[in-house]
C-alpha cells in the first residue's frame, strides 16, 4: 500500500513538472491557430472553435522566413561539418602522431575551453570588420569552424579505441590518412554523431553572434529574423507564435529522432567539466 502511495506521489509530481515544461509549447501551438482577436478573449480557451491554419502561411510570407531558414540551414550545415573536419584531424593527431610539444599544445588548447566566448566578441567583431566580412556568410561561419570542445570529445573517443586496431591497420597497408577515414572515423560514429548534434543545436539556436555580424535581412538566421519580426508583428500574437514554431520545430524533430545521441553527447560534455 505504501509502495503504491509512493508511486502515486512520484508519478503525480513528475506529471505536474512535465505539464509545466510542456505548457509554453502547448500555448504556442494553441495561440498560433487562433485569430488575432480571439487570443485576447478572457477566459482563455485551450480548444479554439475555429483553427486558423492560414496563420502559418501568413507568417511565412510576412517576413523573408524562407531566406532566414535557408541561411540557418546553410550556416548550421557548414559550421557543423567544418568543425567536425578540423576536430577530427586534430583529435587524430593528438591520439596517434608523435611530435614535439604535443602535451603542451594539448594542455594549452584544453585551457582555452574555460574562456567565455562572449569575451572574444568585440575583438572578433573588429577582426571581421577589418577583413570586410561583416554582413557576409563568412562572418557567420568561419569563426566557428574550430571547437576545442568537439576536438576534446573526439580525442576521448579516439583514445578509447584499442591501439592494436591502429597498428593492425598500418600493418594492413593503410596510411595514417586511410586509417583515419576508413577505420577510426566510422568506428567512432556514435560520438561523432553526438557532438555533431550538439553542434547543430548550438548553431541553429545561436543568437548574439549573428545578431551582431549581420545587418541585412538577406543574411539573417532564423532566431535573428524572428526577433526582427517581433516589431513588425506587434501584438499579432498568432502570427508571432506561428513564426516561433518555424524556428523551434526543425530541432524538435531532430531531437525526437536522435534523442539517444544527444544524451550520449551531454554525458560526453560532462567530460569537459572533469578537465577543470
Amino acid at each position: 500500500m505504501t509502495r503504491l502511495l509512493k508511486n502515486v506521489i512520484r508519478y503525480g509530481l513528475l506529471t505536474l513538472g512535465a505539464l509545466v515544461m510542456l505548457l509554453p509549447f502547448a500555448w504556442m501551438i494553441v495561440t498560433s491557430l487562433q485569430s488575432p482577436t480571439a487570443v485576447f478573449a478572457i477566459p482563455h480557451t485551450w480548444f479554439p472553435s475555429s483553427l486558423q491554419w492560414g496563420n502559418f502561411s501568413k507568417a511565412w510570407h510576412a517576413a523573408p522566413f524562407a531566406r532566414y531558414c535557408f541561411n540557418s540551414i546553410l550556416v548550421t550545415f557548414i559550421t557543423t561539418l567544418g568543425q567536425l573536419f578540423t576536430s577530427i584531424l586534430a583529435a587524430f593527431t593528438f591520439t596517434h602522431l608523435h611530435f614535439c610539444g604535443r602535451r603542451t599544445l594539448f594542455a594549452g588548447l584544453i585551457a582555452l575551453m574555460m574562456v567565455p566566448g562572449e569575451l572574444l566578441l568585440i575583438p572578433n567583431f573588429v577582426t571581421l570588420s577589418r577583413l570586410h566580412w561583416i554582413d557576409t556568410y563568412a562572418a557567420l561561419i568561419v569563426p566557428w569552424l574550430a571547437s576545442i570542445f568537439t576536438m576534446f570529445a573526439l580525442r576521448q573517443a579516439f583514445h578509447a579505441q584499442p591501439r592494436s586496431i591502429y597498428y593492425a591497420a598500418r600493418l594492413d597497408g593503410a596510411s595514417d590518412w586511410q586509417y583515419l577515414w576508413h577505420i577510426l572515423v566510422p568506428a567512432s560514429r556514435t560520438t561523432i554523431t553526438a557532438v555533431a548534434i550538439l553542434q547543430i543545436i548550438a548553431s541553429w539556436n545561436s543568437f548574439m553572434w549573428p545578431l551582431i555580424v549581420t545587418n541585412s535581412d538577406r543574411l539573417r538566421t532564423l532566431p535573428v529574423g524572428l526577433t526582427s519580426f517581433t516589431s513588425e508583428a506587434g501584438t499579432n500574437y498568432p502570427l508571432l507564435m506561428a513564426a516561433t514554431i518555424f524556428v523551434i520545430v526543425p530541432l524538435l524533430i531532430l531531437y525526437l529522432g536522435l534523442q539517444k545521441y544527444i544524451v550520449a553527447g551531454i554525458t560526453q560534455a560532462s567530460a569537459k567539466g572533469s578537465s577543470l
Partner: protein
Amino acid sequence: MINAKPTLKSTLKALLYLAPLLIVTITFTIWPLISSFLMSFYTKYNYFTNQVKAMGGANFAYLWQNPDFHLAVRNTLVFVIGVVPLTVILSLGIALLLNQINWLSSFFRTIYFLPFVTSTVAISLVWNWIFHQDNGLLNALLGGSVDWLNDPHYSLTALIIVCVWRGLGFNIVLFLAGLNNIDNHYYQAAKLDGASAWQQFTNVTLPMLAPITVLITVNEIISSFKVFDQIYALFHGQAGPANADLTMMYYLYQKFYVEGQYPVAAASGVVLFIFIVIITGLAFWYFQRHSIKIWGRRS
C-alpha cells in the same frame, strides 16, 4: 611506431593535420583573448583607423564609478542567486524521481529536456506572451494581474522563471548520468547494514553525487553570469523596465554594439571573465582538496 621519437618530419606532418584547427583557434580565440585584454586598457582609441593613442586603467575606473555597471553587477548577482540554487535543487529532485521509476521514465526525460533543444530566443518570445499582463496565460492561471514584464519589481523574477525552466533538462540528464554511475553494490551493502531508504539517500546517494553537483553548480553559475538571449527576446531588445534586467553581458552588448564604446565594453568583459575565473578556481580548489576524480575517470 610505438616508441617513435618526434622528428622534424613527424612534427611537420602533425602541424599539417592541426593547421585547420590551429589557424581558426589562433585567429578567433587566442588573438582576440589577448586583444580584448589589451583593448580594455585603451583609453584613446579610434575604431575606424584602429589607432590607439593612450592606454591606462581609465576604463576600469569608469566601470568602478558607473551606476549602470553597478546595477548590472547587482542584477547579475541577484539573478545568479535566484536561478542557480533553484535549478540545481529542482533538477536533482526530478532526476531522483526519474531514477526511482521504471515505467515512462525515458518519456518524462524527453519532455524535461525539450527546452534545451529549443531556441532560447524563440521560446522567450512565447514566454513574453505568457507573461502578458492583461491577456497572458500566467496571470489567468494565477488569477492575478501582475505586470511581469513592465514592473521593475517583477521583471527579474520573470527572467529567472524562464531561465530555470530552460535549464532543468540539461542538468537532469547530467544528474541522471551521475546517479547511474553509483555502483549498486553500495546500496546493497547499505541495505545489509540495515540502512533505511532515507539513510541510504544521505549516506550513499548524496556523498556520491557531490562531485557532479559541484560541476553542475559551477557550470550553471557560469552560464547564468553570461545570460543575454533570454533578456533580448523577453523584453524586445531592451534590458527590462528601468534597466531592471540589465546584466553584465547585456551591459557589454550595450556599450559595444549600441554605444560603440569598445574599450569600456572590453573592460566589462574582462571583469566578467575575472568573476568566471574566480568561480572556476574555487571549484578547482574544491576538487583538489577533496582529491575527487570526477566520474568517467574515477579510480
